[in-house]
């Protein structure tokens, strides 16, 4: 297992070496030699083709097709990509993983390419929850099952896909609300810093938090919600404004959509010197949040959402669909609560 990956890595080394070689020879002789460039190109194509053939021999006749959102743009997506490939190797299935690189039109085209290729299941990590809905109609007519990964699509597309696999953002919001209630003893005023409005992940994390507070904690009140678009600097600004607007004692808790924004807000709180009477909960842990929780007192609780668990779970569900098995529509993996109490049970996240 994993031979394909290893070979792929070797191919990449070879490619780099060959490229370096051609550049060096260019420097030595003052010009690029066409012949060498052609040799480099031919060799690299042969190697890539060979690695594809090796992959094909290794596994059974099932092919999982995937188009990812934007691999490499952040560590979560990069680790998800790696883990997904490793899981596919472990399960012994072939895979064809494409990357939409953040472009909705490219993702639509890639879904069509995967259809042409005739894969057994198409996993889509949507760039846009709406833009892929029309092309999904074509995939449905073709009879290829579609699994949506990580972020949900617009509801108008639900009837076109077999299911969703990923984190449950609403539950994450609910958990964060429960931890907030613990931290504040059920009494207090809360301000919220949310992700990019209009993005389902941000909206759901906010909605879950609001639902839980309204339903179960009458002593808690959310006095204001502002977006910081998942951006640390923006979050610091938003928090600075909150601190100016609300004096000492007028806010007790801060809820943030993820640790990245959390760290920004904590910076603002620290420089205003108001850390002693504010508690924060967050909907997703990042490495910085982990450090902050160990070192400081402000961040009370966050949630452990691992891209590796996410990818493994998604690959398993995708395999079931490829085999024609029925799955639940919503397939959520566990994102446990992490506070000072149990943080030593978790490793520092690498994302």
């Amino acid at each position, binding site marked *: 297992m994993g031979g394909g990956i290893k070979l*792929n890595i070797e*191919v*990449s080394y070879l*490619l780099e070496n060959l*490229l370096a070689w051609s550049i060096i020879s260019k420097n030595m002789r003052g010009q*690029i030699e*066409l012949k060498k*460039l*052609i040799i*480099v*190109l031919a060799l*690299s*194509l042969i190697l*890539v*083709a060979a690695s*594809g053939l090796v*992959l094909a021999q290794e596994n059974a006749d099932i092919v999982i097709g995937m188009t*990812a959102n934007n*691999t*490499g743009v952040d560590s979560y997506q990069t680790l998800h*990509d790696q883990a997904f490939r490793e899981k596919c190797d472990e399960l012994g299935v072939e*895979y*064809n*993983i*494409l*990357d939409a*690189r*953040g*472009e*909705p*039109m490219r993702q*639509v*085209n*890639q879904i*069509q*390419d*995967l259809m*042409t*290729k*005739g894969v057994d299941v198409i996993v889509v990590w949507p*760039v*846009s*929850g*709406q*833009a*892929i*809905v*029309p*092309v999904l109609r*074509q995939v449905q007519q073709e009879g290829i099952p579609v699994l949506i990964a990580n972020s949900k699509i*617009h509801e*108008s597309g639900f009837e076109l896909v077999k299911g969703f696999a990923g984190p449950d953002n609403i539950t994450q919001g609910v958990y964060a609300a429960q931890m907030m209630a613990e931290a504040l003893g059920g009494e207090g005023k809360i301000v919220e810093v949310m992700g*990019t*409005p*209009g993005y389902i992940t941000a909206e759901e994390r906010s909605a879950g938090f609001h639902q839980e507070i309204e339903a179960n904690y009458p002593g808690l009140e959310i006095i204001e919600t502002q977006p910081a*678009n998942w951006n640390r600097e923006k979050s610091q600004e938003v928090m600075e404004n909150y601190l100016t607007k609300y004096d000492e004692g007028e806010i007790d808790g801060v809820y943030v959509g993820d640790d990245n924004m959390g760290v920004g807000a904590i910076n603002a709180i620290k420089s205003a010197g108001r850390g002693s009477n504010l508690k924060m909960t967050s909907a997703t842990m990042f490495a910085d949040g982990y450090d902050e929780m160990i070192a400081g007192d402000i961040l009370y609780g966050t949630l452990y959402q691992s891209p590796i668990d996410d990818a493994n779970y998604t690959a398993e569900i995708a395999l079931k669909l490829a085999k024609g098995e029925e799955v639940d529509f919503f397939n959520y993996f566990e994102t446990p609560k992490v506070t000072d109490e149990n943080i030593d049970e978790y490793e520092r996240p690498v994302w």
Partner: protein
Amino acid sequence: MKNRILKLIKEQSIWIILIFSLIFFGIMTANFFSFRNFQNILLQTSINGIMAIGMTYVILNGNIDLSIGMIYALCAAVVIGFQSLGIVPSVLIALAVGLIIGAINGIFVAKAEINAFIVTLAAMIGVKGLLFVYTGERAIIGTNLNFTYLASIRIGFMPLPAIIFIVLLIIGEYILRNTSHGRNAYAIGGNQDAAEKAGIDVKKHIIINFMLSGGMAAIAGIIAASRMNTATTTLGRMDHLWVIIAVVLGGTNLNGGYGSLIRTLGGILVIGILNNGLNLMNVHTFYNMLIMGIILILVIYIGKKFEVTKS
């Protein structure tokens, strides 16, 4: 005879590269040579292809238009946003937006004599801002399902967007070859001062070509909106570069004065086939981009090599 063949190879190198890539991917992937896949390639290339028509005109003048990706995204948003007025009015409004932005670009380049790179870079940023303001950073979802239907119409085996692309390309090539506007485009790109002295209204032609570029980007945006029934702020971030690469691949001179739309078609098809073929071949994402880059630089290098021997 031998010289004539050699001349053909030199002048039509993009088609030879096209044939090589067809053969290569035909051998390497199982489903490449299928009717369905060629439909896919045509559909996938039509959006950038339409933008490349306008871009070829602008580049023939010796200018460049970096703003088309954002005009494309804005017009996609506009056509969805005005859908409540009906399909025809919303399409016309989107077209007008593209033409107006193109005209503004052209006026700054021609009348204010600011470098086209700077003008259209500023336009790219400004139009992106407009897009964010207009959409409120949210995706706008279409409500009219008939509009989505447009992009999936097939006439014979050809998808409607591909037909629009081919028709526009033929008209564009005809204008280039047979009208004074076309001939003047080459003259201006060849030597702007000489063209001016010869009595050509250089400013007018430059403005028209930028409007053409904006208008083509608008048509591309309308097609994209129809294919996705949505307009998002993430649309079109890289498309201007792909379009420029396609035009240059085709052999149109970046300094202006030399090139044609048929060559641009070759460039667009080569990029489309590379994208599609590498996807079908299951090349790892990162090598996909690496290989794409190597192939493109190689092709442009070969083109350059031939150009040198010609003179």
